[in-house]
């Protein structure tokens, strides 16, 4: 099991659930876009009716209608 230390882990289950681990914080959160800051880059999740089911400092779960996961810096 090799974990790339520092990199963000995104687990997508179908089109409706995303599990994100290893991030620093939330930059922006609306119903259509969630922007997260990780150690190395930024992650944008686009979709409709996005809800955060839970949010801790280790992992968070996003549910809704996912349209895209974009990596930016």
């Amino acid at each position, binding site marked *: 099991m090799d974990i790339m230390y520092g990199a963000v882990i995104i687990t997508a289950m179908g089109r409706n659930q995303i599990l994100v681990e290893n991030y*620093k*914080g*939330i*930059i*922006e*959160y*609306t*119903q259509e876009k969630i922007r997260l800051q990780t150690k190395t880059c930024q992650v944008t999740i686009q979709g409709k009716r*996005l*809800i*955060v*089911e*839970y*949010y*801790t*400092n280790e992992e968070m779960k996003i549910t809704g209608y996912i349209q895209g996961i974009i990596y930016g810096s």
Partner: protein
Amino acid sequence: MLIDKLKFLQGYVKIKLSGYAPERFLNLCSNHNILIWNLEYEEDNYVFCISVRGLKQLKPILKKTRTTFVILERTGLPFLMRRYRKRKLFFAGIVLCCGLLYGMSLFVWKIEINGNLHETDSNILKFLEENKVYHGLPKSKINCEEIEEELRAGFGDIIWASAKLEGTMLIIDVQENLATNQQAKEQEGTDSGPSDLVADKEAVIYSILTRQGTPYVEKGSKVQPGDLLVEGKNPVYNDSEEIASYQYCVSDADILGITEYQYEDRFSMWYDEKVFTGKESGAWGIRLFSTQVKLPHFFRKFTDYDTITDEYDIKIGETFYLPLAFTKETSKEYRTERKQYTKKEAEQAAKAKLDQFCEELAQKGVQIMENNVMIITDGKSCTASGAIKVIEPIGIRKGTVLTDIPQEGQMEHGSDGEDN
């Protein structure tokens, strides 16, 4: 699922956050290890759930991010308890009730006995009490096998017993031996040695049929108590027609004799009759464990009354009896009236009694020949007296006295004088 229950136990709130930089707020929350969930974004506000503990830690974060919140919902055990904080006794009562019920179920409160015909229930219950099995006994102290053995040993009649515990009931089934009594009587006669039949009462012989033994009486002979009817001794003749020796046997014969039964019955023409006035008074009571509490009768007390007590056991389901019972006592008042039989009524009553006597005799196998009973009524009393002539079997068993004929050259065996 389990986590949901935990969340409920600890209590959480649903709050609406509004302010300048809600994202910073979320980041700060997670840094402080405060869990939030069900986060939604609704027109510039965040709506989410947070635990009560977390809520308390929010104050510094709020200040930093310059946000405020409004509580929308409160869910959880702590809120429930606060709502009922003035109802503590109610919940304590529920707990106490459950505890009592459980405690009650550890004892035996009802003993039921099935299958006994000759022995009364109270006899068996008394016997059990002597052996330390009683109402209110803890279930752990009951040893069913021991009870079964004790019952079998204590009562000669009981050949099979079974004890089982159901709920708070001890059910005991017994099986009595119905055949022994009869068999014992029949065996009595055949065990012993040779026997005679002697008369047990004064009679005139009506018929005699001998199967074993030597008859000493014939039809028409009068016998007195103690007279020999059939001897269990058969003489054996030798060539010169002399008695050589005796052969002993158990006499067996059907002897019918004519005897008389004296019948006398007398009763007074005046009698007391209970007339119920119809007035009743009831009293309720409660029996707990062994103590009884009774409410007093509401109506005034009567001078003469009959009391009927009903007991209603309280039980849950079929077998879970509780040591609690309701008792209802009903008192019915009556008046005693002095009445007199008319001549006809008295005669009828006397005849009825006589008929019953005759029927009892007939059931015993006795045949009635003549009925010479006269019923006389005078002003004060009614008398029925007379003799009833019957034909009935007579003869009781008596052991034969053994003798031997002394022969020339032979010694006499030890014998008592015997009537020949």
